[in-house]
């Protein structure tokens, strides 16, 4: 019987090694898998590369990983937060590397990794500093920039409901990067508010089919970014 549920957060993240590349879901604090991030913090892995839309704020979750010096590099679209303590201080001190990517290009690069696309051309960022050094080609009469997939070893994602196969639904704008990150990581680890019986999710309304999910952990009362 296929059952992807792990008994604990600790078990779910136990094998994430130093140096891993990790997709972390969430946008503006919504959909962030704070409990998985905290478990990873306790686990102790270092030298991580993290792909997330931002750099997180507060003291838990991704902010704890950054603040605790576990993250070597961030790939994101919006590394600015009201609280400069966590990321900005480390960045200005040269202790963390930053790759800035337009938000839509970030999403499409993650999807490309999940969908087996080797690279793609996008009009986004042509003529801007973010296209510096990138190949440009005219397609459909427009200049386009070549962008490459963003693979990850692991994805940490938060969803609403899962069944034991790993089919997922999300809640409102907490969906954001979750579905494409589950696609793009070798191993996707999902904290869900509720685990339901196989068959309880409407097959027409499953957002992430089970094939993209490797591990689920039930976290009925998820921690919020603070």
């Amino acid at each position, binding site marked *: 019987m296929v059952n992807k549920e792990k008994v604990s957060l600790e078990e779910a993240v136990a094998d994430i090694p130093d140096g891993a590349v990790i997709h972390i879901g969430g946008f503006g604090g919504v959909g962030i898998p704070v409990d998985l991030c905290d478990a990873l913090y306790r686990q102790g892995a270092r030298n991580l590369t993290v792909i997330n839309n931002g750099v997180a704020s507060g003291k838990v979750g991704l902010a704890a990983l950054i603040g605790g010096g576990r993250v070597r590099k961030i790939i994101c679209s919006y590394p600015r937060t009201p609280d400069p303590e966590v990321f900005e201080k480390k960045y200005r001190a040269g202790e963390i590397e930053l790759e800035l990517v337009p938000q839509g290009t970030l*999403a*499409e690069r993650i999807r490309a990794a999940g969908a087996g696309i080797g690279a793609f051309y996008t009009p986004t960022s042509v003529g801007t500093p973010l296209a510096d050094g990138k190949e440009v080609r005219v397609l459909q009469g427009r200049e386009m920039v070549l962008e490459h997939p963003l693979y990850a070893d692991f994805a940490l994602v938060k969803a609403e409901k899962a069944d034991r196969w790993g089919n997922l639904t999300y809640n409102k704008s907490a969906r*954001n990067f*979750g579905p*494409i990150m589950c696609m793009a990581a070798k191993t996707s680890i999902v904290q869900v508010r509720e685990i339901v019986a196989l068959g309880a999710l409407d097959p027409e309304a499953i957002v992430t089919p089970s094939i993209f999910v490797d591990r689920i952990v039930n976290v009925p009362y998820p921690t919020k970014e603070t």
Partner: protein
Amino acid sequence: MAEKLSRRQIAWRIVQDIHEGMYVNLGIGQPELVADLLPPDRDVILHSENGILGLGPKPTPEEADDDLINAGKKHASLVTGGAYFHHADSFAMVRGGHIDVCVLGAFQVAANGDLANWTTGGDDLLPAVGGAMDLVAGAKKVFIMMDHNTKDGSPKIVEQCTYPLTGRHCVTTVYTDIAVIDIKPEGCVVREKFADMTMDELQARTGARLTLANDWHLLATPNVG
């Protein structure tokens, strides 16, 4: 008579160019005022980068749902007929040319339609781009909402942007506190100008050469606060 439009009046003016049935993305900050001034009987469907079509008004504290925010990371609501989707689908809408209008702020707009609105290149703030480069590359029309001049009086409409670009040749129209200016192949064309301001006065406050549209008229708005 006021010497210039208030921000709400600029937003009101933009609303006049947003029509029934349009799909519209409003940037963070001032452009959010546009939502407040849309007539309730006009079906305009607001897109939010973080996976929402049909963004509704700010909820009451009781109604607020921590899983429902807008791109500005503030609590939001969903209108009847709205839908949720993931980030790649959201930016497929943007990049694929499905958004009719996006409204953004700007540091500088050039006469050739170049836009600079994400970083001044200085060291005071970390560079943060968000979805701006995707929006200006993909939206059918890019409306800029801004003060005509900086606080120290420098022009924000210029011959060439000196700040790092967000996109090239992307601006459709600039709505400022004193004018409505279309960016056309021939350059900056004044469609509307405020009150009895002369073209010389307007030109003096603008860093790029202006021409006056044949069918120009006065920029007049009601008092919307």
